[in-house]
Each structure stands twice: as structure tokens, then as C-alpha cells.
């Protein structure tokens, strides 16, 4: 129980810290915040249940008024703004990523974690985000998708990085990758 609670809390703190450290340059020199990389790792490392609880805890603290989102944002305003759907999608994306890593054993952990992160963070999270964005801005789903297309390549790169990171974490601390247990 204690280990589960501390891991859930530390990963919530990790999501916050990854959003608050200066933007990390990916390939092509494009600096991006690593906050949703933290969300991906919640699912691929902690597994579906603990990963989702960690993201929920993080979002709960943001809603309570802590400036934990990248750029020091937080409070209830982010849940009534146009990007609120992505935040809700983060919880489901951690579940999906965790389930894929747990049940898809026929391939290397790098592949299953990268695919899990990709399906979770790009497919699921964007589905929630785009539906809310379309509703909030009174646009069609196609138009809302068009507005978000520019962010997808960065998130695909982050999903691949999440795959490599999960496999490296498994090599260094195998007992801590709970998604594979």
C-alpha cells in the first residue's frame, strides 16, 4: 500500500516537474515541454490503474489551484478552457497505455510501450481533446482536428521516446515497472 501510494504521488510530482523544467529540445531543435511525456510514462511504467490514479491526483491538484501545468498554469480555468478535453483524455490515455503494455507481450517492451503511448496519448487523448475543442469553439470535428494537427508530430516523437525510456527503466529498475507485473 505504502509503495503504491508513494509511486502514484511521485509520478504525479514527476508530471508536474517535467512541465516546469525549461522546455527540452527534441530532434529538429524544436523545444517542447515534456509534461505529457510524464503522462505517457505513468501508463507505461506504473500500469493502467496506478498510472490513471497518478494522473487523476495531478489533475486534482491542478483543479485545487496549484500551478502545476506547463507554464505555471492551473486552477479551475484550465478545466473550462478549450484544451480541457486533453486533460481528461490524459487519464484514459494512461489506462490505455498501461493495458497495452500489460497485455501485448509478443514484442519487446520498447515497441509495446511506444505503441501504448502512441495509442494513449495521440489517439485517445486527441479524441477527447478534439471533441471538447469542437464543442467549446462551435466547430466541426474535422475543423477542430485541423487546428490540432500541428501538435501531433511532437507527440508521436514523445511516444517513441516514452517507449525507449520505459525499456531503459525496466533494465535499470525491473521491479519498478509495474505495468509488466
Amino acid at each position: 500500500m505504502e509503495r503504491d501510494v508513494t509511486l502514484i504521488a511521485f509520478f504525479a510530482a514527476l508530471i508536474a516537474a517535467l512541465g516546469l523544467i525549461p522546455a527540452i529540445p527534441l530532434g529538429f531543435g524544436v523545444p517542447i515541454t515534456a509534461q505529457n511525456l510524464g503522462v505517457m510514462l505513468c501508463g507505461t511504467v506504473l500500469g493502467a490503474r496506478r498510472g490513471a490514479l497518478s494522473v487523476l491526483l495531478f489533475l486534482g491538484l491542478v483543479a485545487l489551484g496549484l500551478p502545476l501545468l506547463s507554464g505555471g498554469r492551473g486552477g479551475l480555468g484550465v478545466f473550462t478552457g478549450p484544451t480541457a478535453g486533453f486533460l481528461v483524455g490524459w487519464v484514459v490515455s494512461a489506462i490505455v497505455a498501461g493495458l497495452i503494455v500489460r497485455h501485448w507481450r509478443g514484442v519487446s517492451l520498447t515497441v509495446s510501450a511506444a505503441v501504448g503511448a502512441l495509442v494513449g496519448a495521440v489517439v485517445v487523448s486527441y479524441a477527447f481533446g478534439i471533441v471538447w475543442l469542437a464543442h467549446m469553439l462551435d466547430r466541426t470535428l474535422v475543423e477542430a482536428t485541423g487546428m490540432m494537427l500541428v501538435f501531433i508530430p511532437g507527440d508521436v516523437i514523445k511516444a517513441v521516446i516514452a517507449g525507449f525510456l520505459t525499456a531503459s527503466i525496466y533494465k535499470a529498475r525491473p521491479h519498478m515497472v509495474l505495468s509488466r507485473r
Partner: protein
Amino acid sequence: MISLTSPVRTVAHGWPAGVKLGLLCAATVGLYALSDPRAMAAVVAVVVGLYALPGRVFLRTGLGRLWVLWPFVVILTLWHAVTGALVEGATVILRMIAAVALANLVTMTTSLSDMMGVMRALMRPLRLPLRVTRAVEIAVAMVIRMTPVLLEKGLLLAQSWRARSMRRANWNIVLPFVLVALDDAERVAEALKARGGIATDEANRHGT
């Protein structure tokens, strides 16, 4: 950790957090019932007036927190200018600004402890076991305590990378960063267990 509650004391700081959240829900639902841009502009004017009441500092902070919406305002304005539906666009833009501004207003006038009181009240009807509510409280405290600690360790990792390399730290520092967090989590879990663990109070209550 600093919360987003405004240090400028307002009358609304003394109102019960549950009432403010209820009013916010009702106001947000009400915004979607309005479709006239003039009515929506009046709502935004009232909200700006609410921000202005406590003074210039509060107003400036409040408006500064709306700045994140500018990309959406630009995109929507351009879109509606092209499609020739500027009136419809104005309604959507004003609704978005009003919804976010009202929610930010509640955050700025409600302390973290009051918000946690609401969270506790919402959890009460769920009748969760004591160890679960204790676990939630400990987890919340741990995130608030550990975020600055991890942030500092992350910045140290980036600095040590810079000391060894001509290039800026890239995503390679995320791996040691996660490992540091995992090791710290393990040590804190051991310390928590050594002090009786999360379920201690419940065990004592039941005389075990």
C-alpha cells in the same frame, strides 16, 4: 508551494468554497444558453468588473491569466473573418473568455485548504475506508512536498549535463530524472512503513 489564490484579499475570499463552485457550475451552464453576442459581451463586461472591484493588482493578475487564450482568439477571429460569420465568432470567443475568467475568479478567491475541504466533503458520501482517505491525503501532501524537490533535481541534472557538454540538455536527462524519482519513492515508502504505515490509524481504531 505557491498556489494560484490571490494574496489581494477580496469579499469572495470569505464565501464558502462549495457555494462558489456551485455558482460557477450554474454560470458556466448559463453561458451556453446565451447565443446573443451583445448579451455575451455584457457578461464579459460584468466579469471584468468583478476582477476590477478588488483593485488594479487583482485585475492585472486576472487578465494576465487569460493571456493563454490568445492563440484561440486569433484562430477563431481569422476563421470567422474568412467565413464571413464574425458575429457568430464573437459569441464563441466571448463565451470562451467568460467561462475561463469565471473559473479563474473562483481559483483566485479560494484558498487551497478551502478547496481541499470541498474535496473531503465530496469524498464523504462515497464512504471510502479510512485508509483510502488517509492515502489520498498523504498522496496530496507528498505531491506538494516532492514537486519542488524533483524540480530542483531536474534542474541539477540539466546543469550537470551542461557542465559536460557543449549542447543543451535534451530528452536524455529524462531517464536519470525518472530513476531519481523512482528511487526517492522507494525510500519514502520504506520510511512511511517504518513509521507505522498508512493504515495505522485504522488499525488502532479497531484495536488491532
